[in-house]
């Protein structure tokens, strides 16, 4: 008998996606797919434009992570011109980027992650959101979050003129130097952000780590995949969001390969499936073996969990302390997908500590903030760690700097196979005998929410909040459950 259930609203994910779950005759899950059903090619829009425009254009792909595109793009343009940046410029860029991390990661944690744990994964859908969260933890906490975002916004404005669609990085450096007054203001703001980050980590520890039920959920098999991981590390092998070499570790945590950003095409291939617009990147040396985990599969994951798995640790003391605890409980590599949330709050702390550190660095107020571009432009790759994972911008130009080829690989694309596997595994373990309820469906949603997928970036598609549909089909292919957002 056909049964259609419509539950509204689903209000916590950007992009346009669809989860299709197929049941067998016994009502158990035979297969599940995470599909992206919209595509608007961005790369084509860029061809024929001066490459210098890219750091201003690319942030408009996504209102969630404009700074990530801004920085990756600026680095790619630097590479196109063979520009070597002065240390002041590098440090200003890194400082701005770390402030953005706090702004973005804190919104993701409080708006997307925390409702599942604080309000509860099986709480009524209408309450399982940030408003429900504020109801539970109190307005004072809400004020702290908004205040921290305001502090971050003000600091970004100080560095970039505006916090959204930044103009901080310019080819060869940054748009302006920092004055001593700016520096002092950033230092004061950074202290507040370190306090806020510690407060956030404490919330996570109190609510999640002290609750055995949640710990079991995080560490259980429902949300676990033994994959490869990828992320940037600095020269000491520590987490770095702005710069470094790309490191890949295998499912046992051993370094599988390390490469310079310009060599990414030697290591990453992209598989295409007909049922989704989102490609499936994989490690070329292992080949595409399908949407499966394990040592022989080329599937890898990126993002907060990936970064903590590839790196030897953090360069800042408080984040390092938190990382030691993370390793002790989840192991290394941590294969628990819900560990993304924990890794994210540790990274907020690391980013805040790094901003404070850089604000005290004598180089930060240096006057040598930009180099002239004197070389003939040709080709360049820029890689940063976006909050959601490794972000690659690759540009080719003619000798006048006009773009002839553009390739972007974003975090959500790297994680595509991981998200698909997570959705399938959670569905298979949670839906039995055709019994589906709202709590179970939310727990399936949790499998992909951990990655915080951004489909505007993933498809370089029409940005904005788009429908995410969850459809469950019986053994005869009939739709039995459908959840839509308005």
């Amino acid at each position, binding site marked *: 008998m056909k049964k259609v259930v419509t539950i509204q609203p689903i*209000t*916590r994910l*950007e992009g346009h996606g669809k989860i299709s779950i197929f049941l067998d005759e016994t009502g158990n899950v035979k297969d599940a797919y995470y599909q992206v059903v919209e595509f*608007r*090619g*961005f790369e*084509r*829009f860029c061809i024929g434009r001066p490459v210098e425009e890219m750091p201003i*254009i690319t942030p*408009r792909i*996504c*209102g*969630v992570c*404009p700074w990530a595109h801004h920085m990756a793009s600026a680095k790619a343009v630097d590479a196109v011109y063979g520009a070597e940046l002065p240390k002041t410029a590098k440090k200003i860029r890194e400082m701005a980027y770390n402030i953005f991390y706090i702004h973005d990661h804190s*919104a993701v944690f409080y*708006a997307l992650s925390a409702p599942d744990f604080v309000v509860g994964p099986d709480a009524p859908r209408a309450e399982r*959101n*940030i*408003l429900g969260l*504020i109801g539970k933890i109190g*307005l004072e906490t*809400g*004020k702290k979050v*908004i205040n921290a*975002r*305001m502090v971050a*916004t003000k600091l970004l404005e100080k560095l970039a003129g505006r*916090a*959204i*669609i930044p103009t901080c990085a310019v080819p060869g450096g940054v748009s302006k130097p920092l004055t001593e007054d700016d520096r002092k203001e950033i230092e004061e703001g950074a202290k507040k952000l370190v306090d806020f980050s510690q407060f956030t980590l404490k919330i996570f520890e109190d609510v999640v780590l002290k609750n055995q039920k949640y710990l079991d959920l995080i560490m259980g098999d429902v949300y676990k995949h033994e994959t490869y991981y990828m992320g940037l590390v600095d020269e000491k092998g520590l987490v770095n969001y702005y710069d470094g070499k790309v490191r890949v570790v295998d499912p046992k945590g051993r370094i599988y390969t390390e490469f310079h950003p310009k060599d990414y095409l030697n290591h990453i291939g992209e598989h295409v499936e007909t049922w989704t617009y989102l490609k499936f990147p994989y490690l070329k040396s292992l080949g595409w073996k399908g949407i499966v985990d394990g040592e022989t599969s080329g599937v890898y994951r990126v993002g907060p969990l990936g970064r903590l798995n590839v790196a030897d640790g953090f360069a800042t003391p408080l984040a390092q302390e938190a990382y030691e605890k993370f390793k002790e409980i989840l192991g290394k590599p941590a294969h628990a997908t819900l560990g993304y949330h924990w890794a994210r709050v540790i990274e907020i702390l690391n980013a805040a500590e790094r901003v404070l550190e850089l604000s005290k660095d004598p180089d930060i107020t240096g006057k040598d903030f930009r180099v002239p571009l004197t070389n003939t432009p040709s080709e360049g790759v820029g890689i940063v760690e976006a909050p959601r994972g490794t972000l690659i911008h690759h540009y080719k130009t003619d000798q006048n700097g006009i773009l002839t080829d553009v390739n972007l690989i974003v975090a959500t694309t790297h994680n595509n196979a991981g998200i698909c596997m997570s959705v399938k595994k959670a569905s298979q373990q949670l839906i039995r005998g055709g019994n589906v309820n709202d709590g179970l469906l939310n727990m399936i949603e949790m499998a992909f929410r951990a990655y915080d997928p951004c489909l*505007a970036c993933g498809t370089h598609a*029409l*940005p*904005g*909040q788009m429908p995410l549909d969850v459809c469950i089909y019986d053994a005869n292919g009939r739709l039995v459950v459908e959840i839509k957002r*308005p």
Partner: protein
Amino acid sequence: MKKKGIIVIGLGNPILGDDAVGLVVASELKRRLGNLVNIVELCAGGLTVAETMLGYRKAILVDALIEEGAVPGKILRLTFEDLKVTPKRFIGFHDMDLVTSIELIKAIEKESFPDEIVIFGITIQKPGCYQEGLSECVKTAIPKCVEIIEKECSL
């Protein structure tokens, strides 16, 4: 807390065709009104929009709007309550939907939240691909929309 007067926030994405209309209206208002009213062009959504309104007595939002069956270029004046009753999905960048964001910021920052929010939506067709420039139908709505918002500011 003593609030400032009016903020006009033009929303949109300049490389998504007609989605940029809110930005164009804001830019024109800035040219005409100068510093008389605080006017912001924002390529963002959700929480950022709600945070930008804080500290003002009245917030006026201008954005592209998709309304099924509507001719492009129609101007709608909506209040926040209208959005809740008949959700009109704004397009543009969102880190959280506008209604939830406004409700959240209002709950947390009651004292500095505007007493009044007015939304001007200009209907557009769903943008198909990345492109610059507005369609003729949508362009023709701009002078009228600017005039209406000027009056709204002087109320």
